[in-house]
């Protein structure tokens, strides 16, 4: 038989090897703190039951730990309980990589990465859209925006975000 298993696996971030946090102009880019993320998809006819457990299910918005993520689907940034039989739940904690962009100029950066109406994007608003040519999720923060893409794309997101931050900062000094 084999030897005693004392293997301890350590975790790495999706952004390992990428420079973070990044400060540029008045803007700040940092890895999002999101310890867990689960997908919750209520079965047909079970939305009310799910709301009884989790609270109101927002559309195109975030409501506390509940983040709308698409048709009949929400992300929950907390451990799911009480959803057996009324919703399909999967762990998505490792599937997504997210960055928080804050500080003045963040709207100009967002305008360079996605087709959203950057000037009107509000805190707690959620959009599923293209981010730097990748399928992504965009969540409004108080003074900025949270950008999420699938984990394997992390380096590409980081690269284009930093390019856009540098571009916006460089252009802000051009007065004429």
């Amino acid at each position, binding site marked *: *038989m*084999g*030897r*005693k*298993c*004392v*293997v*301890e*696996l*350590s*975790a*790495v971030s*999706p952004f*390992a*090897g990428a420079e973070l946090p990044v400060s540029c102009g008045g803007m700040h880019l940092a890895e999002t703190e999101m310890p867990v993320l689960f*997908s919750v*998809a209520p*079965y*047909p006819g079970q939305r009310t039951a799910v709301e009884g457990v989790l609270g109101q299910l927002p559309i195109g918005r975030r409501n506390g730990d509940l983040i709308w993520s698409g*048709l*009949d*689907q929400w992300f929950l940034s907390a451990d799911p309980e009480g959803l057996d039989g009324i*919703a*399909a*739940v*999967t*762990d*998505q*904690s*490792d*599937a*997504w990589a997210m960055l928080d962009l804050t500080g003045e100029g963040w709207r100009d950066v967002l*305008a*360079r990465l*996605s*087709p*959203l*109406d*950057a*000037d*009107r994007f509000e805190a707690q608003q959620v959009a599923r859209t293209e981010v*730097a*040519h990748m399928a992504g999720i965009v969540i409004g923060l108080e003074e900025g925006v949270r950008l999420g893409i*699938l*984990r*394997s*794309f*992390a*380096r*590409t997101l980081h*690269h*284009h975000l930093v390019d*856009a931050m*540098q*571009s916006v*900062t*460089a*252009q802000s*000094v*051009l007065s004429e």
Partner: protein
Amino acid sequence: MRVREGSRIDAERVVRFSLNGKAVVGRKGDTLASALLANDQRLMGRSFKYHRPRGVVTAGSEEPNALFEIGTGAGQVPNVRGTVQEIFDGMVARSQNCWPSLERDALAINDLMSRFLSAGFYYKTFMWPQAFWEKLYEPIIRRAAGLGALSGDEPVGDFDKAWAHCDLLIIGGGPAGLMAALTAGRTGQRVLIADEDVRLGGRLDAESFELGGMASTDWAREAAAELDSLPNVRVMTRTTVTGAYDGRTFGAYERVSEHLASPPAGAPVGTFWRIVADRTLLAGGAHERMIAFPDNDRPGIMQASAVRSYLHRYGVAPGRKVAVFTNNDDGWRTVDDLQAAGVEVSALIDTRPDVEPGRDVRTVTGAQVVATRGRLGLESLDISKPGGGRQFISADCLAVSGGWNPSVHLTCHMNGRPIWRDDIAAFVPKPGAVPGLEAIGAANGAFSTHEALRAGADAAGGGEIPAAEDAPVNVTPFWHVTGVKGRQWLDLQNDVTVKDIKLAHQENFRSVEHMKRYTTLGMATDQGKLSNMGGLAVMAELTGQPIPSVGTTTFRPPYTPIPVAALAGRAHRAHFAPDRYTPSHQLSEERGASYVEAGLWHRAAWFPQGNETTWKQSADREVGWVRGAVGVCDVTTLGKIDVQGPGARDLLDLLYTGKMSTLKEGRVRYGLMLREDGFVMDDGTCARLGPDHYVITTTTAAAGEVMAYMDFCAQVLKPDLPVRFISTTEQWAQFAVAGPQSRALLEGLLDQGLNDDVLPFMGYLPVQIGDVAGRLFRISFSGELAYELAVPTRYGDALIRVLEDRAKALGGGLYGMEALNILRIEKGFITHSEIHGRVTADDIGFGRMVSPAKDCIGKVMSQRPGLHGAERQQLVGLRAKDGALKAGAHIFGQGKRASAENDQGYITSACTSPTLGHLALAFVVNGRARHGEQVVAHDGLHGTDIACEIVDPVFMDPDGEKMRG
């Protein structure tokens, strides 16, 4: 020469640049053209075909002649319009299309041969001998023709792409656009006003008008300042709206640092915008037309409005003795403005016999220009009246005004054609040609300042407007002189004359579309902005029709040339597409792996060790490890879809050919999915993890496609099924552990027994590695005893390192895609090389996998005649003794000529196995009945013919004893 202040010029700030190696001094605010004119340089370029000396004709982006190369080395940009390029210290400019110099161009000899070089000459000459075309004629013509040159170096500089949204987009910041922006901006609408020029104002900066009791240029400045102060108004200067597209979206190119000597680090050269607007006002103004007369292309002959632009914006008079030639009242202004600046006006020539300009200048009405002189620049001209003789006029600049053409281009981008108006002898935009867009002001044929202001205010909600001039243009059409010898130019950039239009007509190219292509009129970088009307007028005369009956050609984006790199934005070179990296990527880098791209993923192809120098050496070794000990491979990239709910079984039965609903918990089954038309879409596995919980896998490159397909099936075909699914490809890092020692490795790692009772072939088991919950599947793509172990992706890097260590301890190690491919070909396992979209389940030998007991997508269509039987190309194996087989080679009977009639099939996958020799998988007509037959694999691309034998596609262990254990 500089005669006064200019509204754009900062006289205190000297700018030094060079043209053709010679130093030139200008002022901040000058364009290249205005700086040259200020230095009395009228000669600015050479024409495309005849290499005739040319000067600047306009003061705007419609410029046909004054094209330059700006910059050196990799930063060199060709075909830059001198009327748009702002000068900066150290700027290097070069004239194009002239050798050895602008003043002495050897190819001006073309002009002497103009009789032989008229429109379409290349269709009639250079025909003989035929062999000379490619080697001699074409290279010579290519070198002699053409405008600017590219550097050939890797380009420098980045471009951004960005989106903008607004309630009201205003294209053009002249009087109409400014008034609309003020009106809408003051009521709080979200306004975006874009102008291609360096500041808002348009013609207000170029005329001596009064507006609201002040100089028009001052009014424009105040209006711009007010717009800047409004938070709901976005002002974008140096921004050309380049195209109108679907969805109320407009493309626009913003010049960010093209005018800067040292752009700030990180700033792009330019930004390509996509602007989404609820409503749009086109206030892009109009272009002044020229009049054609003999030798009307000499340096010094320019638009009358351009003469005024240079005077007011830059304080420059383009000549010391200016004559004016006009067919409308607007041209007379030029006399007033020049005289007010102290410049001598030698004559005012009006084509109309019955007008009285009343200016203090030698005036000749009912006259036309019939000749000009001055090789490198205008020196004098002749005019004549019908029935009268010639008069001599001395002039070094001729200001020509033929009327105005509203700038209709954008309104044609969605296939609209403009409408003719007799009263202004011009085309105007067709209403509704672009949904949500309305043309106002001069762009809509309303040429006075008052009309422009009124239209702007009304379009934005109405209200008061300042007082302004309201003079009618009063144009009497006059397109070209007749009854005189000499070439009369229409398209200056492509060197097309009135005679060329007549020639096209004579040769029966009578449709306006044919005339355009035959003569190339309107096909240069200015898209015929100054020449189209003249061409149509000549055609109308020749065909005896009114101009609108001749029809118009169309305009396409971009409105003015933009760098192609701007359309790519940041998606170029290494960042052409997003990159996807596996959890084992860091380790692969440390091991010196080479990669293969599967979709957007980078997958390690082989891991070189020791003295290995070729991929084959590494791959053969890795194959040996898997067959003889144990290999570890990252298979994270395969699509994983988590399917849950009481309705999951029914959905899976619909998608798969097999009856997945009978799959027991803890078991895995191989499955095929068909398209609606009965052809195979994808293959993969389906694992049942719980009562209503499944995880299915897809091939790497089709993961997104299968996911989208499942969304369609669930939402459209079975909307009431209680089933939900989501991709978990990225949630789990997954590694294949394959080989005779794989069980031993995993039993040691997981500290539990894994015999067939615990985990049978095609089984699933939840496991723990320390604190981490993982999933263990017993499936094999190599044909050996094998497993796939999955953990949440954050632990993937740690796990693969542990697996590699343990594999090495057992005499094995990592293996990559090349080895994986050899292993699976040896076992006859198919990939999308075989299921390429044109094969059925029966073709690949899986006809029995289509369950007779239930329906599935594609089942009915798969039973159509022609999709079964001996006539089909069926999956077989091929073995060759004497040469490597290649995918793409076609199969022929021995001794048969390689022809379409004799074609028996083709190879889809091939390898040279380290133990079994040259192998291939192929589709051959009636292949299953032809095992043992000798055929030939013919590779036309590489010129090889390899004898091979048709065999069973499973080359080893046909009963699968190794993997079934």
